């Protein structure tokens, strides 16, 4: 019998009070098959140490001179034999293709081999990543606001009934669009490998943003009445075509870069022409959030475009595909268009309506400018950017 390499005195500590921790610590300092002599005065020490050693795969014997000998077994070493670090904890430690069994493990954790392999199908760093993601998430987390207090919901002067109706119609349309904008990142979120956790965090906050937008637009619509406006089949068809896009980058492109990008112009228009303070506040609050969503979409696609020369061709095909799919639909809900004209006009005089109509034409122009600029940033030459922007849905998003 080899001499013990170490001696551990547990004093009165028993296994019903944590003695296993000291034994384990003592064994960790020894090699496999190393011998630890354990002494102590707890009356059940021998009974419990024997049972614990057996359960842990360590050898146990009674020392004739008093105390017990524990021989370190191999089980723990074998358990961790194939373990690997799940990348590193910071974004610099992200690996391009994380294995499925890293799944829910913290990034940078020592991951025991085996375990479940959740089916996160979006598992390529370059399909989801943007270096801006951690900063955008930090900004998004800091910029959350409470709908109850961020808006002064008190009605000062009631609007003329038809103007109020126009506001309700526009709000109804916004809620519909925000629903799609909530569902799309939520679906993507459930598919992205959690190794890219900054992207998950960002998508989660993005969904939370849209949840708040749905709340404030609904609340504004119902501020003076109890009915919402209309929802057209064409408008819903346009949004539905976004839900059908399974590719992360293409969905992000259609939703964030083109759709929410166009929405920035719309929300700016509503801020400018809002007939009451509540409408102005809710559109302004939403616009700040939407600008962040657009920034992530653009940053992600810029990142991917640098790595994938085929990306632009795929983006172009996605726009064309969506255009073809929507060719037989009506585009923007006519009630929404007329409501926007009336809000910009402010009254029913022919001059005012003409002014409002021009303002909505200008809005279309502003949306087109914005889309072309963002397409330009993604590397599309001017003529192609103009062509693709023109193919974007008439439903704005």
């Amino acid at each position, binding site marked *: 019998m080899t001499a013990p390499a170490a001696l551990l005195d547990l004093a009165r500590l*028993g*296994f*019903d*009070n944590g003695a296993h921790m000291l034994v384990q610590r003592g064994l960790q300092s020894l090699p496999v098959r190393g011998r630890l002599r354990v002494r102590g005065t707890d*009356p*059940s020490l*021998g*009974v*419990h140490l*024997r*049972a*614990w050693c*057996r*359960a842990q*795969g360590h050898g*146990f014997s009674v020392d004739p001179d008093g105390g017990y000998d524990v021989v370190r*077994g*191999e*089980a723990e070493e*074998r*358990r961790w*034999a*194939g373990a690997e670090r799940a990348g590193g904890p910071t974004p610099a430690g992200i690996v391009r293709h994380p294995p499925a069994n890293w799944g829910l493990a913290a990034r940078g954790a020592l991951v*025991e*081999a*085996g*375990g479940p392999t959740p089916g996160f199908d979006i598992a390529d760093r370059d399909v989801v990543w943007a270096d801006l993601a951690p900063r955008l998430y930090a900004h998004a987390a800091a910029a959350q606001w409470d709908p109850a207090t961020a808006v002064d919901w008190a009605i000062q002067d009631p609007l003329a009934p038809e103007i109020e109706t126009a506001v309700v119609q526009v709000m109804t349309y916004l809620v519909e669009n925000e629903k799609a904008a909530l569902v799309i990142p939520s679906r993507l979120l459930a598919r992205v490998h959690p190794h890219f956790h900054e992207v998950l965090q960002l998508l989660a906050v993005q969904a939370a943003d849209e949840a708040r937008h749905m709340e404030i637009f609904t609340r504004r619509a119902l501020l003076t009445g109890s009915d919402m406006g209309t929802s057209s089949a064409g408008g819903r068809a346009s949004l539905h075509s976004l839900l059908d896009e399974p590719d992360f980058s293409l969905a992000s492109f259609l939703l964030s870069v083109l759709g929410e990008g166009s929405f920035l112009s719309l929300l700016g228009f509503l801020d400018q022409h809002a007939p009451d303070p509540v409408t102005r506040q809710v559109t302004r609050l939403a616009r700040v959030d939407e600008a962040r969503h657009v920034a992530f979409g653009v940053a992600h696609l810029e990142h991917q475009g640098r790595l994938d020369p085929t990306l632009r061709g795929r983006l172009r095909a996605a726009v064309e595909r969506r255009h073809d799919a929507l060719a037989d639909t009506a585009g923007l809900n006519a009630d929404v268009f007329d409501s926007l004209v009336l809000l910009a006009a402010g009254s029913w005089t022919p001059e005012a309506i003409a002014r409002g109509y021009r303002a909505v034409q200008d809005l279309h122009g502003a949306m087109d400018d914005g889309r072309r600029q963002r397409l330009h940033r993604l590397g599309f030459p001017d003529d192609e950017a103009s062509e693709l922007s023109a193919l974007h849905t008439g439903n704005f998003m």
Partner: protein
Amino acid sequence: MPGDVLVMGAVAYDAKVVTIWEGFRRWFRAAGLPFDFVLYSHYERQVEDLVAGHLDAAWNSPLAWIRADRLAAARGRTVRSTVMRDTDQDLTSVIVVRTDSGITSVTDLKGRSVGTGAIDSPQATLLPLSLLRASDLDPDNDLSVHHFDVGVGLHGDHIGGERDAARALMAGEVDAACMIDGNHLLFLQEGVLPSETTRVLAQTPVFDHCTMTTVDTGPSELTHRFIELLLSMSYADPEVRPLMDLEGLHEWRRGRVSGYGPLVDAVDESGFYGRDGSIGDAGYAP
């Protein structure tokens, strides 16, 4: 066809038995061993089927091993203890009393009540009662023995009887309770036995637990490969490690019979089984 597949019996003492042996079956078949298993509701029928040649192997409790050995010998057959878990070797059981009971030696139990596990539990009934007999206490006359019969037929693989005995000890319904050493620690950790309220009065000599039992009617080549494959299972293999964790082992070891002496004595003292493997205890109804 019989002989083309190695058929093993296992007792379904818990739902996890299905997970374990389904997983092992996949692993065996991937390694080229045609393997099936049959689940039994208790050990007695499993042992009878093994000796009758309906099974090629049986994952046996220690008590089931003894009966298989006796039944086989009575019928001119041979069974072998082929592999065991590392955790099946060198176990002990304890007899526990309350710290404030005033009971300081085994002989103080004379005239007192002792709670045991199920009637067929090697570790919580047969072996502790044998220990008391060694101290000249006759369980039938000197003691009032209360069996906590949970999962009769499972040969003590159901922990419930031991836990009930421990609860009865704390409730003052019995003066001593019998359990395997690891369960004494578990019941302390669970709070069933509050810390420092109980004391180990006596501990049995070491004994061995389950064994993979094979029979000479089985296909020898498949049986040999079955044993070698079990012995080759590595805790470092992430595919089988979760199954080994569920089955409670770190490695399979070659089977031995040297650790069954105390239980053989206990069985004979109590007449639990006859020398020919017949069931002797009238109160035992699996």
